[in-house]
């Protein structure tokens, strides 16, 4: 085990750090958010140039052959700037489906476009009743000649309003909550029977409600009746990326809090001199360091091929980081006082991203319950 970055990893981190340092200040971010797409196309092109968009794909598919470690490095930097671009939806989620589920021909064609910045993907899985259960799918897929038609409604589709193609979970057979009978389909966004309603989420990201009415799928990924393991594998990798993003955001909000504690004067001295606050700030660091360890563990665990074992570990990751990020976010606001309650101050925006990150693909309660239901991490002798 080696926690240090190798040379090319170091270069990746440096170049991204430089780019975001230049282009992703608080004011830049506000402008990107206010723009029509809600994020920066210009930066998207620069991510492509840096190789971030083709990062996790095999070189023979036109990618850069990066692994979980490289994704972690990038996600952490994205978290440090709470970026708005659809990197997570397109490269981590969408890319995950292509890597694990697509036919070589389709994969190569799409990877090339993704890597060049010309193709955006969004994962359409959430339904009104499904909450955090990936297997709770009411949307249907019906055979139509050689292809499939999709009908149903998906909600909170991250970056669904700018996506070119949706990766959609739909039920081919079985009951709404059966693990079997779920397929994963690729549906072009601008096609008949696809109705998209975009909106902004509380953390500044864009999302959409997407209605499929007998929309034609252009491809099916993997076994149309056995897609759930694919979904789980992709989501588990995504959880590792979310973990790294949370670390980036927590590090920044914590540093911001410490800076403020050193400069803000009340009662004739820096508020950082009050022990009650020092202890809170120290507890925040404890939580962050535990989370950082969990983020490494997430990257390690995500490549596990034994699916139940992988799931088990990802539950632990989400539960630990989820708690920590809530604690860190709430206390960052508290230690700042009123200033952090304003839209004009960055801390609140980090707090909001941390709040959304915590519950994405299952909140702390969900994962703790799931983990305890399967007996936790430590087996009784």
């Amino acid at each position, binding site marked *: 085990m080696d926690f240090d970055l190798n040379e090319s990893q170091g270069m990746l981190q440096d170049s991204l750090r430089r780019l975001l340092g230049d282009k992703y200040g608080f004011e830049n971010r506000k402008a990107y958010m206010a723009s029509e797409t809600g994020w920066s196309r210009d930066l998207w092109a620069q991510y492509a140039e840096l190789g971030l968009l083709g990062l996790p794909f095999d070189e023979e598919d036109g990618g850069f052959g990066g692994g979980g470690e490289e994704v972690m490095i990038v996600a952490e930097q994205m978290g440090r700037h709470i970026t708005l671009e659809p990197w997570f939806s397109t490269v981590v989620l969408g890319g995950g489906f292509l890597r694990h589920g697509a036919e070589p021909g389709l994969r190569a064609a799409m990877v090339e476009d993704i890597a060049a910045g010309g193709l955006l993907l969004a994962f359409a899985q959430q339904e009104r009743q499904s909450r955090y259960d990936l297997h709770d799918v009411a949307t249907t897929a019906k055979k139509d000649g050689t292809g499939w038609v999709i009908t149903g409604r998906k909600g909170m589709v991250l970056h669904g309003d700018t996506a070119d193609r949706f990766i959609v979970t739909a039920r081919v057979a079985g009951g709404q909550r059966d693990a079997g009978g779920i397929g994963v389909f690729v549906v072009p966004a601008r096609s008949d029977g696809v109705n998209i309603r975009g909106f902004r989420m509380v953390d500044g990201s864009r999302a959409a409600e997407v209605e499929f009415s007998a929309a034609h799928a252009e491809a099916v990924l993997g076994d149309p009746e056995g897609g759930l393991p694919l979904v789980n594998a992709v989501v588990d990798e995504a959880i590792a990326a979310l973990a790294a993003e949370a670390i980036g955001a927590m590090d920044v909000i914590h540093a911001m809090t410490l800076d403020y504690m050193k400069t803000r004067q*009340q009662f004739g001295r820096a508020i950082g001199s009050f022990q009650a606050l020092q202890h809170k700030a120290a507890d925040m660091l404890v939580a962050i360091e535990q989370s950082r360890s969990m983020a490494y563990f997430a990257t390690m665990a995500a490549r596990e091929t034994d699916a139940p074992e992988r799931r088990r570990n990802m539950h632990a990751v989400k539960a630990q980081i989820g708690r920590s990020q809530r604690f860190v976010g709430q206390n960052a606001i508290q230690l700042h006082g009123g200033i952090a309650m304003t*839209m004009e101050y960055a801390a609140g925006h980090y707090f909001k991203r941390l709040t959304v990150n915590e519950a994405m693909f299952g909140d702390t309660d969900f994962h703790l319950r799931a983990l305890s239901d399967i007996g936790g991490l430590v087996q009784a002798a």
Partner: protein
Amino acid sequence: MELRFTDEERAFRQEVRDFLAAECPEATRQHMIAGKSPTKQMVVEWQRKLNARGWAAPEWPKQYGGTGWTPAQKYIFREELQMWPAPVPLGFNINMCGPVIIEFGTEAQKQRFLPRMLNLDDWWCQGFSEPGAGSDLAGLKCRAVRDGDHWVINGQKTWTTLAQHADWIFVLARTDPAAKKQEGISFFLVDMKTPGITVRPIVTIEGGHEVNEVWFDDVKVPLDHLVGQENKGWDCAKFLLGNERFGQARVGASRERIRRLKIIARETMDGGRPLIEDPEFRRQMTEMEVELKALEMTVMRVIANETKRAGTGKPDPATSVLKIKGTEIQQGVSELLMKAAGPYAWVDGDPDADGSNEWEVAPDWAFGLAGVYFNWRKQSIYGGSNEIQRNIMAKAFLGL
């Protein structure tokens, strides 16, 4: 000691409920059930109805428009309003500035301001905090200088809640810069229409506009708008802050939110069954209910004690307990509400811009739940932060 509500008190509760049923506009109630703050118009309309009934300021002495109720009745009244839910009497008028004028003001000030406060003919706001003076309120810099037949105020206030609605502002300003911090401060009543006052909005993290900066540039204030003695404003401030802390227990409001939470938890599916059937979620909710019950009794004890303390001009340090626990419960419940909505809590603002939810991007009840959670982080910061409350307790109770 007699630890039960009397028949009279139970009858009184029914009387309040009947009044709410007959008089509280349904639109106001539904607006508040949805978790939104009542609009200015809703607050004004309701305050006037309360005033017409003689219930505008239950805590005031009877000769100024109070009710003469027993402590239990005062408690019941507030609880019933919050549980309905209906707006409570406007805090700035009824629980902050009014009591200060009653305690420290002149007869002329009482005559002039109190009736208009009761009827919300004047909306007041609180001009205490400044950019450099938050927890350390006595470090304030806003200056008032006497110039012939008036005072001239210069400086900046911030975090002024609902100053955009206000007709008047009560202001702490420094009148003797040479004196020790607390000793050179005075308490002023200032007409918001006075030339030289500028109000600038501050947008809070959930996107709402409830706080403001208020700037004073050579603002002339008549001499008789000083409350109490010159340089003795800190006594008014301490008295007022004690009352403010008291108001933050909001037991009825938390009970109403928990009721709402239960309805939502019945509608939300989780793991193929209603969320309310999840033992862990129920446990978290029940914990809140248990703490709330204890707080309810604590509030009643503090109210009962209030009668004994009347006239001492000093707040009960136990109000710090109410402030800490009341805000922790409210924040905890807002967190559970957001959690109940799951991903659907994340829709920002109002995507249709008209409240119609025509797009149906989330269930009606899910809108704004994350926003309230974000916004309510303020509760442990304002009104004397919860850290400051602990400092107060350490000094007043713990002998440390």
